[in-house]
């Protein structure tokens, strides 16, 4: 696992680069990145959102899945191999699942709005935007909870601190 993980991360990076390239070479509809507002200067409107998603929605969806996977794999890489217990992998899998759930809800609720023009509401925002505003934040908080609550188990144990103190002592001794 220790040797394979960086290769997997590299593969994810290559997949993101390939998806970005595919998006770049796909013919863009008019005003793919917005259009001037009809009546109000210095304000942009969205243009044809459905046309945008039709052309590259699948690539964009996959790109963000890869991005979320990239973030989780980097967290795994940062934890020393000896501390990557089954429980740690379990928590990381849950974090990834929460992130993917938030992303797919946001994406498909947006797509449903484009098709029907209707939306539900949650705490002041349309449902898709509420998934973005509250969901993305919450998904990140899961990662932070694992870091803080699992600090001694996964990040820096008391044994690690002793090893580091010993390293510092050896370094000072060798300088003297």
């Amino acid at each position: 696992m220790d040797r394979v993980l960086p290769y997997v991360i590299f593969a994810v990076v290559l997949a993101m680069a390939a998806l970005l390239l595919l998006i770049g070479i796909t013919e863009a509809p008019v005003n793919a990145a917005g259009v001037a507002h009809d009546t109000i200067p210095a304000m942009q409107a969205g243009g044809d959102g459905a046309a945008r998603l039709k052309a590259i929605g699948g690539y964009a969806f996959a790109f963000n899945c890869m991005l979320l996977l990239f973030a989780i794999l980097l967290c795994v890489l940062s934890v020393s191999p000896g501390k990557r217990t089954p429980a740690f992998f379990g928590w990381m899998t849950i974090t990834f699942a929460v992130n993917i759930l938030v992303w797919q809800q946001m994406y498909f609720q947006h797509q449903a709005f484009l098709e029907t023009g209707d939306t539900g509401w949650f705490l002041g925002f349309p449902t898709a935007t509420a998934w973005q505003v509250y969901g993305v934040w919450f998904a990140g908080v899961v990662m932070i909870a694992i870091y803080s609550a699992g600090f001694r188990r996964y990040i820096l144990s008391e044994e690690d601190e002793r090893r580091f103190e010993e390293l510092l002592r050896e370094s000072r001794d060798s300088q003297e």
Partner: protein
Amino acid sequence: MEAYRHEIILGTIILYMSLCVLIGLWSMGRTRNASDFFIAGRTLGPIVVSLALFASTLSGFGFVGGPGLVYSIGVSSFWMVVISATAFGLGFFLVSKRIRMIAELRGCMTIPDVIAARYGSELARLLVAVTIVLGVLGYLATQILAMSVVMQAILADTEMFADISLLSCVVLSSTVLVFYCVTGGVIASVYTDVLQGLVMMVAGFLILITAMQTFDGGLREASEIVLADDGESMMPFGAAGIITSLGWFFIFGIGLAGQPHIVTKMMMNKNLADNRSILPLSLLGYVVAALLWISIGLVMRAVVVSGGAEPLTLPDDAAATFLALFASPLLAGIVFAALFAAIMSTSDAFLNIGTAAIIHDIPRAVRGRPVENELLWARVVTVILAVVAAGFALFSYYRDATLVALLGAFGWSTFAASLFPVLAIGLNWKRATTAGAVAAVSSALAINFIVQLAGITLPWGITGGLAAFVTSLVLFFGVSYATPLPRLARDIDRVMEI
């Protein structure tokens, strides 16, 4: 109270500036050597580091440009804010432990010091130091310009200073900043960050309350107005579209761990175990302060769309117009103080790391040894750097905006693209080589420069920063795998085992 609006706003700002000066004077006695000046001697507690970390993250852009972006392109720019939890989390997972360990083990004072220790390469140190200096000049120039323009607008409303020039405002605002940076170095910088962070949190919270009361139906009514005018603007990808939004997700979410002014703060805490509490505290501060970004932008868009106010000439006027229309004089004073706090907390961090790169890292990389009397030179170079950045800012304003725009391109995305692979991944992956690091930094600089200089517009709203970031990651891994296995110093190897 309303009759004294300008006086109250001015009084609040003068009070805030005076506190910054006092902190500078207090810190002077605690700054005895270069280590104190650059990393506060690694003596800071968790609350100070948390507030300093988030205050440095949220610059003047969050208080002026952020609401302006929401006004202009709708929900697209929410991505820069909502990704903060993932960004802080990833930054702490990847960087906070090992950077602090290497800093103590090798006596590192700067990010290029850590890079040189990790890769055993003076070339890598030099490249990173040069990147930081270029970025610092651009960032500082834009921050000083923003601070001076806001100060001029506030003073112009008073009788006494009605005709004050922009030059006078540049001198006035930069003097306070330079004073506390020169006298107290990073100790003054982090303790002013504490004050600045608290002011920003208070402002963010009070603005959210005010924004929710602007419409009878609260934020939902504002959202409904924006949605009815243009559905896409109120949807997750806003007017800028899905690729621009995901690009910001990438650059701001992943790239925080490559921001030198932020990760430098991770070298300053007294105890390694404090990281456990620093992370959630930093995020909490950032989220509360950033409420201002989302709420002002959304409400101003709704107010203008519904005909409640004249359209803004510039999107960046959103915050100032909101304060003039809806905030009490005292709240307006607090928010303007928070704006100065946001600008100054980022600027002092940049002054500090820019000075360190010039007097500490570049001489080491080129001559193999530091300058004599680093503390004295640190103070001299801090002044020179601020004067040069202020000069850039004025030149840009009166003559040619290209220079600052060009240096401004060396902002968040260039730091993210060039430093994230080298620092954040390099501290966790022993196979990363010097050649990989050099390829990543060089490609990120080149792509950002070329896109900016040639005025290239990529399709689908793909930003130059996103293209540079993905390319540098590919090259970092690819070149590292293609070059021989690196031989790490024994102590660095052991740190990377922990």
